[in-house]
């Protein structure tokens, strides 16, 4: 198990005051909140910061953590020394907020799992018989899956109570059909696949949010798909028929004479095939051949001499 340097995670000196800790936490929590931050590892960072704060905000836990010493480096192999916590009392058990899966093994080895109640929501507390909680998870798919439909195996980890009343992290794998026509951010509801209910109450639902893996060719917006298409200058100027890749397979596309750079061409209904199918937008990108041979130079020179073309005429120069 790796040692976690909670001070380093929060960018603080070991001598930081409780006020400084609180300020640093608030700032970092805003910075890495998964709903706000676009940084790729925001969720992981947010959890680390939350865990660090969980320990450092509580003077008792902080004092216990501090006496492990300052010589530990983040990432070094760590086992708590025997009786490391002698003389410290953690009120209310380890967890005071958050969910069990959010804490590292390091945290659990020090502060344990006590005090955590998976039925902490109002829904769970209210009555003897109540519906289980809904669960939410993301599922990553390829754009091509949205065109054809797919089946994805999804592994979910959720805290559950075992027979003796302890919290254990249970893993389960579900095979889920991804219907064709889904778009980024869309949700699939799987009835009864959330937490078990209490006292014969019905189970909650599982919501899966669709997320596309980034694609090297296509950009997606709703059901519409965008593709940059490189063209030779003569294809754009004279018109041409060119082969174009689409997520459903290559098609032949007519390029009109005088096609301008960046002026979108719409292929109606060739986007994601939903009830109202999206469109595929092809964005011409006119590229220049290198003038790296005598022949190529000669051709460019000939154009320069024989074509009256000033690309800056609109600038009045």
């Amino acid at each position, binding site marked *: 198990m790796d040692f976690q340097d909670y001070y380093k995670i929060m960018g603080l000196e070991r001598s930081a005051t409780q006020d400084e800790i609180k300020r640093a936490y*608030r700032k970092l*929590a*805003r910075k890495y*909140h*998964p*709903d*706000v931050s*676009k940084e790729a590892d925001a969720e992981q960072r*947010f959890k680390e910061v*939350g865990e660090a704060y969980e320990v450092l905000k509580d003077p008792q836990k902080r004092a216990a953590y501090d006496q492990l010493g300052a010589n530990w480096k983040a990432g070094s192999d760590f086992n708590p020394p025997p009786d490391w916590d002698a003389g410290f009392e953690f009120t209310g058990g380890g967890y005071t907020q958050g969910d069990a899966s959010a804490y590292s093994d390091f945290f659990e080895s020090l502060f344990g799992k006590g005090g955590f109640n998976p039925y902490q*929501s*109002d*829904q769970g507390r209210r009555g003897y018989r109540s*519906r289980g*909680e*809904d669960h*939410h998870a993301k599922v990553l798919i390829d754009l091509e899956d949205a065109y054809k439909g797919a*089946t994805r*195996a999804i592994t979910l980890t959720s805290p559950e109570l075992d027979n003796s009343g302890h919290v254990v992290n249970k893993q389960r*794998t*579900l*095979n*889920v*059909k991804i*219907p064709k*026509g*889904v778009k980024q*951010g*869309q*949700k*699939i*509801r*799987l*009835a009864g*696949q959330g937490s078990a209910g209490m006292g014969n109450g019905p189970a*909650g*639902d*599982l*919501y*899966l949010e669709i997320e596309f893996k980034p694609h090297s060719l296509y*950009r997606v*917006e709703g059901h519409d798909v*965008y593709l*940059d298409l490189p063209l030779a200058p003569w294809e754009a100027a004279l018109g041409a028929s060119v082969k174009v890749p689409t997520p459903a397979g290559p098609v032949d596309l007519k390029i009109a004479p005088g096609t301008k*750079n*960046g*002026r979108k061409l719409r292929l109606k209904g060739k986007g994601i095939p939903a*009830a109202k199918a999206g469109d595929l937008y092809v*964005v011409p990108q006119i590229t220049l051949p290198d003038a790296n041979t005598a022949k190529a130079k000669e051709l460019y020179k000939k154009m320069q001499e024989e074509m009256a073309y000033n690309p800056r005429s609109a600038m009045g120069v």
Partner: protein
Amino acid sequence: MTKTLSGVLLEDHLELSLNDLCQACSRPAEWVIELVEYGAIEPIGEEQLNWRFNVDSLQRARTAMRLQRDLDINLAGIALALDLLDEIKRLRTDLHINGSYLT
């Protein structure tokens, strides 16, 4: 052999009840009503008893729930944050569609 499950695809036009929204956010109805009062989400229908919510409201309510839980923001701040997040998303989408150049 795990059997394959098919869920219900939540289409944009799908509507949820006040109760569905409370369940999805693990929050009481009073909390959802307050979100409506701050304009953070907009119900369909006049009578509170018959309120319906679209999938966008579900998304916004869940974000609101997390912002309140994690950042300790009040509902007025949450309503503002949701609007700004929408604006950032719209700008990012424009940038993304236009690639690295703007025409």
